[in-house]
Structures are given as C-alpha cells and as structure tokens.
C-alpha cells in the first residue's frame, strides 16, 4: 500500500529524529515534550506500517531507497529553531491531512481520527515556540528565520498527491499556507519566498530519493536489529 508506507515512513522518520534530542535538549522540560511527540509519531507509524506489512521488517530491514517519507522529516535536527521549523511545517500539514482522512472514511480514517488530536498538540507546541523564538531576542528571531528559509524548499513535496489518499491536495495546500502565514505574522516572521517546486526545489522522498544525512540516520536506527535479528528483552 503506497499511502500506508508514505504516511508511516513520515511518522517513523520524524519520530526517530525527535528521539535524537533525548539527552541533548536545551532543558529537561523540553526534552520530555519532544520525546512525547516522538512517541505519538511512533505509535502512528506502527499502525500505518502494519497496514503495509510487517512493521519491524519495514522499519529495520528496508534499504534507504525503499523509504517513502518526504525529505522534510529526515532533515537533521540542527539547532532548536530548525527542529521547531521542521515541526511547524510538518505538523500543520499532518493535522490538515489527518482531518481530511478522518472525514473521508477510507482505510486510514480510524487512525487519522485518533491521531489528529495528538497532531493538534504537536502543531500547538511548534506554534508556541515559533512565536517565542520569532518574537524573542534578536538572535532567536534570526535563527528562526534562517531555519524557516533553509527548510522551505522541502515543503513543496508535502503536497504531491499520494496514491491511495483521497484528498484534495490543492485546498490542503491553501489551508496550510493560510495557517502558516497567520502564525509567522504573529511571530514577526515572514513566509519564505524561495522555490518549493521545480528544478531548484528539493523533494523526491516519495520516490525513494533521499538526502545525504538520511543514510546515516537509518544506519543508527537499524543497526541493532540487523546485528541481532529477532532479539528480545
């Protein structure tokens, strides 16, 4: 199932990236918040990948080219502003997508109806940090601006239609941009202007083409299972 893989890989890969903050987050409270979001996403990934096949096999034994996640979610954590910008772009998209999938009544409706409440919290968390970083100090504003711009070229891919998702992608995109614009305005930031599609934009993750750092992330995520197949504790 193409769609289950695409949505499941989005959740799995972003979950792993957020998990990388464990032990490194700026404050203990934020570390728990990020781990919480990571666990929500992992739960979604397990349901989605189980629809597509054996969840462990899919997560731990696939090669890089077989992953169908968008390139946005595999981008390295960077500084805290990069993590928040990535989360803002993705959670806003995921909430709108899951709302539509929940209403649509297709195979993902039960998961989407449950997960949309989790994702609304992820989006809220990212928005609150965006407001504080954007409208904070000169340095936090600058870091948030740089993060939003450097990840902008990965956002076009979010709205490439996914086979098996009965969703109006154009209106999804319009709603995403409206929501994002209102948050960034309140945060005294601007919506980036760079390209999001075409030759100068990134994004072919849904076709299995990934960015450089993704291979290293997968190696770390998969090595235990590959070294000790079937290990339990």
């Amino acid at each position: 199932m193409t769609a289950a893989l695409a949505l499941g890989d989005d959740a799995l890969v972003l979950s792993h990236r957020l998990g990388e903050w464990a032990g490194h987050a700026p404050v203990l409270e934020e570390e728990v918040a990020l781990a919480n979001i990571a666990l929500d996403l992992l739960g979604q990934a397990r349901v989605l990948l189980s629809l597509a096949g054996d969840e462990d096999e899919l997560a731990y034994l696939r090669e890089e080219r077989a992953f169908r996640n968008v390139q946005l979610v595999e981008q390295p954590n960077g500084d805290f502003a990069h993590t928040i910008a990535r989360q803002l772009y993705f959670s806003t998209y995921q909430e709108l997508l899951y709302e539509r999938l929940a209403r649509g009544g297709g195979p993902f409706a039960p998961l989407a109806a449950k997960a949309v409440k989790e994702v609304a919290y992820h989006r809220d968390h990212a928005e609150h940090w965006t407001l504080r970083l954007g409208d904070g100090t000169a340095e936090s504003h600058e870091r948030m601006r740089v993060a939003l711009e450097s990840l902008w070229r990965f956002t076009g891919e979010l709205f490439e239609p996914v086979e098996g998702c009965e969703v109006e992608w154009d209106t999804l995109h319009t709603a995403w941009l409206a929501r994002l614009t209102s948050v960034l305005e309140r945060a005294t930031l601007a919506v980036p202007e760079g390209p999001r599609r075409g030759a100068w934009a990134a994004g072919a993750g849904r076709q299995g083409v990934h960015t450089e750092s993704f291979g290293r992330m997968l190696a770390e995520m998969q090595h235990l299972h590959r070294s000790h197949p079937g290990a339990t504790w």
Partner: protein
Amino acid sequence: MSGGPSGAWPLWEVFVRSRRGLSHTHAGSLHAPDAEMALRNARDLYTRRSEGVSIWVVPSTAVTASSPDEKDPFFEPSADKPYRHPTFYEIPEGVQHL
C-alpha cells in the same frame, strides 16, 4: 542542565485534577519561560499517563509558605483536641471522597 536556560526561567508549581469532582492536588514543579509554556510542560510531565483532566500552574514566587520555625505555634495546639475530629459518629455506607 544546570547553567542552561532553565536556570534563568522561573519555577512553577503544578496542580492536577485527576478526575471531575476531586480537587486539584499538587503534582510537582517545573521551569518554563511563561505561563502558557508552563501549562504545556505540565501536560507533558505530569499527565502523560492520563493522570489528569485539568491543570493549574502557579508561579512558585506567588506561594506564601509556613516556615518550619513556626511549626509548634502553628500546628501543635491542635494535637490534643480530639473533640475537633469527626470520630464520634459512623460514616454511612456509600459515602465517597470523605
């Protein structure tokens, strides 16, 4: 994490109501830059295993506490007045939360 930003952030006391009908009880404390974030941090730290239906956060500086030095004048006089304790009647069956 000492010396990090949390050192500069104010401390908040967290009160969680576990069920409707019960009162908010003190769950712990945390650091946060402002009340909104304190509420969200409290949600993540103290209600992740569905412990709550409502949260209050209060700046720790807003709490006026009794001092250990005042323990005797504050609390000791009540110890020898058993007539203040409601122990002289039976509690009817089925009364909860008493």
